[in-house]
């Protein structure tokens, strides 16, 4: 798609152009990111009040002081037939009008003067590749019959990162092979899951592991040339999905085909110096009622070529960004499925020993509260802990009073590049555990904590949580059910990379929780359809015909549960629904489902929950036909985080009770919302006997 040269020139002449990734805005702590978080929604809300779904995406015209002059997003402003792109190639005349109006506003209401000394100039606000990483540019095309379709003819782009460790593994595999060999697992999975995707239609959400049905590659060695190791490969792939946990939506997508390529490696620098790849095959899009082009079958072409330009050194693959939960609007995506790619779960759980100069200080650190059953060993001794230092991350561990002290002097570029680890933990699938610790930091710090297996494929063992560690001691408690464990090869981690600073952690304990073993058998697994979807802090129990709501009369945090005026219907992106009273139940009729689960749903907002407290949620539901929904609680303000419970549920045609307990986390005072997401399908559902009570 040709891009408007007049628009390009206009931007050069009349504006200071800036590019930003919404994910990085939340992931990377910087003055600029904080500034944008403050002004972004203000501007889009004020300047585009008709836009029902507030999105961070779009084009903002701002003064240096934050004054908003204009906002435009093609999908939401009716200028594009699609919802999913603000790409340069689809900008239309409407965008010029927004620029005109914005400039006029700028002239009549100029920004205030700002102090330029505190703008955070030079602070890293983006997720850059490590200098040792080889960057490949990925391009996609969907040749189609309609040359005027700006979306389908738009070239799709991405970056593919190949790590030094991938190159090392590949050379080792080559040296061990007598003939052909397969790609190393990390490289193979990253290539398949993240980069054989349809970027032309903005279908960029990574394939989940279970979506990959075939990924067969055959690599053969060519003769060396000028000291470079050369290879050729071909392969077949086939991926399909009906549900994607990251989106929390039922999308039919598939891509299958053949791939071929040639590449060269510098065996000394362990870098890919040449990478030429072509893939092709039929690609089915997602069904979007308002956007019929996307559900069509096309032949998708993907090309890949090494990149060493300024952009390649500056920007991250889109799949990298997809991992962060703030994108999920509170939906309970867990990165445990996010194997073999840099997010949430480190590439290696076999961390280094504490750095030299830091001696163990037995008995200085208090053990966890449940010392008699603590499954973490020697929490009071430094030697029991490992410091993960990857991709340039550097940290040291020591003690201060009763706490472990981690001093991160180089954060690497992602959370898992530095972390506090304890390896070789014994967890068992299906058993429930309770993790407890307290932490504080020199300044507020977003981290990840959980358990992951050691070794391929480094998936989660059932807990992977984003946490925000404040400057004062805060208690973190997590209940989770272990899954995908390996005997004595599971590691506890608190990942704190991506930035520098000091963190203190104390009273760390892992205990087996009640409900393990025999009780496990009573759990209705039909309500635990996908561990990537199910939010482990809460577990929906086996349904029964009728169970009274616990203590519904007293302490119910849900207000007026028997009256429809107490409830709201969320209707976004074309979703339509209505509420009626029917006997003792609320009847929800969904006449248009939107395209994602949260486009239609039942809501009750302004709930007051507190971090660390345990709650019990109870309700009953039935539907005119079996219906997969999502239920839980989340913050009602950006970034719309889960506050401890989010689960996919299957509502049958007969009344079924859903009940769970969870520990609240990341709550906002009086700004939490209970939701039952019902999109993207239509139908009628009945719900009754709601209660949300604190467990005492």
């Amino acid at each position, binding site marked *: *798609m*040709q891009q*408007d*040269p007049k628009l*390009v020139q206009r*931007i*050069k002449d*009349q504006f*200071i*152009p800036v*590019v930003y*990734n*919404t994910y*990085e*805005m939340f992931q990377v702590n910087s003055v600029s990111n904080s500034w*944008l978080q403050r002004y*972004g929604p203000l501007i889009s809300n004020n300047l585009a009040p008709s836009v029902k779904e507030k999105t961070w*995406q779009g*084009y*903002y*015209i701002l*003064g240096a002081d934050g004054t908003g*002059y204009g906002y435009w997003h093609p999908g939401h402003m009716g200028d594009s037939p699609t919802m999913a792109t603000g790409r*340069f190639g689809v900008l239309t005349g409407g965008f010029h009008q927004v*620029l005109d109006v914005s400039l006029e506003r700028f002239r009549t209401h100029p*920004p205030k*003067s*700002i102090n*330029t000394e505190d*703008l*955070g*100039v030079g602070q890293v606000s*983006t997720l850059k590749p490590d200098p040792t990483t080889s960057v490949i540019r990925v*391009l996609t*095309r969907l*040749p189609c*019959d309609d*040359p005027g379709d700006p979306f389908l003819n738009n070239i*799709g782009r*991405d970056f593919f990162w190949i790590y030094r460790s991938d190159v090392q593994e590949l050379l080792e595999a080559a040296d061990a092979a007598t003939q052909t060999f397969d790609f190393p697992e990390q490289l193979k999975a990253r290539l398949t899951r993240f980069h054989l995707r349809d970027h032309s239609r903005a279908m960029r959400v990574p394939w989940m592991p279970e979506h990959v049905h075939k990924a067969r590659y055959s690599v053969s060695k060519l003769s060396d040339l000028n000291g470079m190791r050369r290879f050729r490969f071909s392969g*077949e792939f*086939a991926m399909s999905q009906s549900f994607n946990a990251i989106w929390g939506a039922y999308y039919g997508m598939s891509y*299958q085909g*053949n791939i071929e390529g040639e590449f060269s490696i510098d065996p000394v620098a362990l870098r890919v110096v040449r990478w*030429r*790849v*072509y893939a*092709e095959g*039929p690609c089915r899009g997602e069904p979007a009622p308002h956007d019929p082009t996307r559900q069509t*079958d096309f*032949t998708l072409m993907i*090309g*890949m*070529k090494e990149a060493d330009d300024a*952009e390649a050194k*500056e*920007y991250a*693959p*889109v799949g990298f*960004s997809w991992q962060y939960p703030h994108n999920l609007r509170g939906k309970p995506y867990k990165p445990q499925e996010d194997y073999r790619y840099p997010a949430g779960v480190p590439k290696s759980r076999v961390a280094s020993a504490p750095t030299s100069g830091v001696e163990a200080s037995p008995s200085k650190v208090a053990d966890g509260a449940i010392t008699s059953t603590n499954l973490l060993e020697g929490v009071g001794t430094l030697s029991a802990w490992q410091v993960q230092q990857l991709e340039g991350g550097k940290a040291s561990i020591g003690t201060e009073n009763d706490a472990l002290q981690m001093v991160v002097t180089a954060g690497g570029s992602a959370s898992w590049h530095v972390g506090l680890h304890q390896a070789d933990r014994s967890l068992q699938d299906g058993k429930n555990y309770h993790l407890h610790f307290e932490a504080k930091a020199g300044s507020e710090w977003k981290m990840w904590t959980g358990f992951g297996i050691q070794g391929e494929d480094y998936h989660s063992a059932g807990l992977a949580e984003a946490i925000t560690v404040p400057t004062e001691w805060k208690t973190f408690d997590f209940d989770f059910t272990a899954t995908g464990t390996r005997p004595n090869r599971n590691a506890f981690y608190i990942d704190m990379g991506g930035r520098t600073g000091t963190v203190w952690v104390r009273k760390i304990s892992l205990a087996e929780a009640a409900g393990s073993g025999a009780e496990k058998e009573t759990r209705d697994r039909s309500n635990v359809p996908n561990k990537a979807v199910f939010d482990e802090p809460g577990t929906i129990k086996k349904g029964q015909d009728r169970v009274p709501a616990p203590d519904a009369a007293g302490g119910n945090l849900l207000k007026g549960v028997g009256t429809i005026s107490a409830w709201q219907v969320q209707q976004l992106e074309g979703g339509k629904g209505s509420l009626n009273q029917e006997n003792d139940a609320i009847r929800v009729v969904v006449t248009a489902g939107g395209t994602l689960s949260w486009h239609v749903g039942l809501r009750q907002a302004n709930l007051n929950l507190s971090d660390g407290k345990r709650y019990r949620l109870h309700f009953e539901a039935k539907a005119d036909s079996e219906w997969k929904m999502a239920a839980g609680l989340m913050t009602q303000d950006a970034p719309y985080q889960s506050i401890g419970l989010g689960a996919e549920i299957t509502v049958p045609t007969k009344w079924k009770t859903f009940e769970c307990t969870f520990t609240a986390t990341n709550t906002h005072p009086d700004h939490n919302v209970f939701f039952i997401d019902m999109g993207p399908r239509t139908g009628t559902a009945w719900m009754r006997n709601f209660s949300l009570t604190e467990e005492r």
Partner: protein
Amino acid sequence: MRCTGLLSFALCLLSASPILSQNMPSRFFKPGTSLETKLQSVLPKSGEEAYRTIPWHYDLGQAREEAQRTNKPLLIWMMDGHPMGST
């Protein structure tokens, strides 16, 4: 089927086969077509990357300083996934 644009040199040479086989033929290229030719058909053509000639800032602090100094508004292009990586 109407053949258009970037792949006109190769499009329609082979009819589409919806069934994937081990050696599924390319829809666009004759057997024996070089890898480089196939790759070139996907790479951006002139005019498709005009946006890259814009001096985009990724340091917002620096951009705000420049906006004040030059008395221009900021135009911030913000997307889920970096605009320069996934446009």
